[in-house]
């Protein structure tokens, strides 16, 4: 009997303690983290190894361009070379991760350059220092000595892609209007440059006013508006030969604000007949045109969605300039902007998820972004005059023109991250406006 009582007491005690045990966690420790830090990721790019006699300078230049590309995004911070503990003396030698951990470099780019005078080979690897593994596979590019900057941009694109998981935008070009001379006698010409302002080349002379150039997706053609005949007309220019022709030849009619469709065969533009401006589309091959809007108001600045199914444009049909979206074949449009002020120059993001625009409100100009349904509007900049946004090929950065106030004011190109950070001026030899960012080459 005593045994039974003792066992009953034991069971009672365990039954009481069982809930306490159950209160303790079962299985692994589970933790949720909802707050991180927003800061540039530290990385290191030691000078690339020169694997041939004459490649020393080229190796340094390529490594510097790679570092400038990455640091210029605002997403990365280069650990200065003076802080490096390890030196990369051979491309094939193993990486001493402890040395790079010690200087808090989270990513490491190693590379080597060889040249025989006519052909340059650049090879590189990207390392995750703290995981002690290589990100992706090593890769090498070959090209001519003249193309060393492009090779450096391609290396930077690969590094960017492997760390962020998104494509880069360094090996891309921008067509823009180069401006020179005083404000009242300004000379405007079309020019093309690398995304960072290098390698500027002119596409037109200074005999006629030109406006609003737009790259085709393949970067081989440029649409623009020219006053060559005294009336604004849409022209198309072949970049390789610098030959241009009027795209729409109807006399007495103004056409402007052109933009290519993603298929490269259709052009959408504005056409003014009398006092009414509507949006039209033209098939370049056949020359056939069709009218997409027929409101008595001014509709202009059309821009296709990346899949070519929709068009965003500006219209004052409600009394002030607002943004509207319609089908690429025309028809009923829905208004997407409802904030205070005037909205203009909408551009659809290459990702397809956002629309960039210019906004004028309370005497200030802004560059902003919003969802394609008009929600989540955010203004990224503010100044005396910001206008004409254009997206980087990866939809991460916006370039636009900023003009300073006063008689001596001039226009320059700027870039800003869609998070509103990292506002930077693009170095151009002269004034610049109306940028259009081409696709990744």
């Amino acid at each position, binding site marked *: 009997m005593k045994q039974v009582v003792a066992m009953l007491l034991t069971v009672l005690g365990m039954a009481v303690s069982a809930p306490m045990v159950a209160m303790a966690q079962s299985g692994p420790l589970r933790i949720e983290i909802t707050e991180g830090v927003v800061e540039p990721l530290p990385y290191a790019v030691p000078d690339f190894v020169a694997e041939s006699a004459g490649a020393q300078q080229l190796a340094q230049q390529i490594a510097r361009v790679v570092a400038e590309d990455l640091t210029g995004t605002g997403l990365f911070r280069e650990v200065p070379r003076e802080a490096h503990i390890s030196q990369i003396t051979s491309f094939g030698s*193993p990486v001493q991760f402890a040395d790079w951990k010690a200087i808090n470099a989270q990513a490491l780019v190693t590379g080597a350059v060889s040249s025989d005078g006519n052909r340059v080979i650049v090879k590189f690897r990207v390392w995750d220092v703290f995981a002690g593994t290589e990100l992706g596979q090593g890769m090498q590019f070959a090209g001519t000595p003249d193309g060393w900057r*492009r090779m450096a941009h391609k290396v930077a694109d690969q590094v960017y892609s492997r760390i962020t998981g998104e494509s880069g935008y360094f090996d891309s070009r921008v067509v823009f209007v180069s401006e020179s001379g005083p404000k009242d006698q300004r*000379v405007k010409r079309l020019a093309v440059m690398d995304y960072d302002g290098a390698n500027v080349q002119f596409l037109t002379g200074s005999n006629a006013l030109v406006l609003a150039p737009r790259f085709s997706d393949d970067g081989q053609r440029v649409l623009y508006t020219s006053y060559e005949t005294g009336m604004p007309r849409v022209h198309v220019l072949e970049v390789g030969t610098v030959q241009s022709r009027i795209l729409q030849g109807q006399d007495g009619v103004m056409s402007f604000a052109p933009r290519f469709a993603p298929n490269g065969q259709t052009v959408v533009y504005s056409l003014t007949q009398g006092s009414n401006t509507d949006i039209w589309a033209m098939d370049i091959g056949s020359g056939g045109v069709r009218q997409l809007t027929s409101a008595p108001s001014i509709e202009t600045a059309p821009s296709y969605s990346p899949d070519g199914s929709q068009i965003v444009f500006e219209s004052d049909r409600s009394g002030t300039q607002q943004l509207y979206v319609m089908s690429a074949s025309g028809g009923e449009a829905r208004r997407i902007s409802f904030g205070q002020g005037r909205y203009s120059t909408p551009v659809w993001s290459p990702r397809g998820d956002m629309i960039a625009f210019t906004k004028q409100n309370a005497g200030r100009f802004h560059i902003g972004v919003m969802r394609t349904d008009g929600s989540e509007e955010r203004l990224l900049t503010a100044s005396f005059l910001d206008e004409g946004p254009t997206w980087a090929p990866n939809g991460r950065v916006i370039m636009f023109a900023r003009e300073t106030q006063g008689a001596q004011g001039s226009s320059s190109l700027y870039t800003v991250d869609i998070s509103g950070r990292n506002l930077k001026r693009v170095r151009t030899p002269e004034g610049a406006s109306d940028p259009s960012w081409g696709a990744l080459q």
Partner: protein
Amino acid sequence: MHTGHYISGGAHGILILWALFGGMFRSDPPEVQVAEVSVISEAQFAAMMQPQAAPQLGAEPAALPQPQIEEQPPEPPVQDAQPTPPPEPAEPEVSDPDPAPQPVLPQPEPEVVETLPQPPAPEPVPEVEAPEVALRPIPRPAPRVAPEAVPEPAPDAEVAPEVQETVERSETPDVTDAEEQQATAPEAATTEIVTEAEEPARAPSASVRPQVRPNRPAPTPPQTETAEAPSEPASAPEASPPAQEDTAAADATASAIAGALEEALSGGATDGPSGPPLTQGETDGFRIAVQDCWVVDVGSQAANVTVTVGFDMDRSGRVVSSSLRMLAAEGGSGSAVETAFQAARRAILRCQGDGYNLPPEKFDQWKTVEMTFNPESMRIR
């Protein structure tokens, strides 16, 4: 009593004297400023009030004297030293203010030749000679100093000045068989003392971790014990009928207890970690340590991905790198998920330092971790 009268009288007297001699009733008027004026006639006044006529433009002003230009410049001072010719001005770069547009030559397209093979793995770091964990220290025998060095004697030899080998009785009789003797040897000695300071350091890198509190006994055995317990009395069922009744009752009780135990212990406590759970503060400390290293690119597609990472840890609080694995991901494309996982992995590895600060006595609670990185609140809106 008349103090007040005296004071009043004195004061009035002083006041009267000041009024008489202090100048209060002096009759000198204050000085008045006098301006001198002149009297003019009415005609003069009328002439003054007439409007003045504008000055008449005179004839052409005389030409200003022009500076004389010397025909011959003055001779430069003669210098003794031979003058050196000025440097030739650099040829200015001829720049066309309006260069004609040139065909934009396509830039040379770099070609991807090949992907490179996997690089060699880094050489392993050589192990240190010092033991990782020091055992209980053993006292060093103090060396004995003697004029001549004596080797270490056999363990079973007695200390004696003479060396004597062990002599045992042999099985086979021998004439020369010596008497059985115990081995002896002189005590070990050395000619000089070598201190620890002169020996290479063999300090351990870590000491023995304090012994943890023993875990609670596993609760599973009682189930089998209680199940087997009734079988013992069943071996002698016919010994006494009353004992058989007791056995049946005990059997029923035992089965009831076993059932109650099973019910009480259900809930996974048997397959979960034992020991006390982490406190909220300990969990928060761990979470904050990792989130300080979690770099979020708020504008990227990876910011739309919530990723859960699992990993194991050793007793020192360090992450077992090879155990890092992605358990789940929600939102975003494949590349965005991979980027989010890399960022989470970097955060876990980068902030561990020499090990996360977690209580060693609760190792069972945190030896396996599932960490979810949710950037929803950080996304740009």
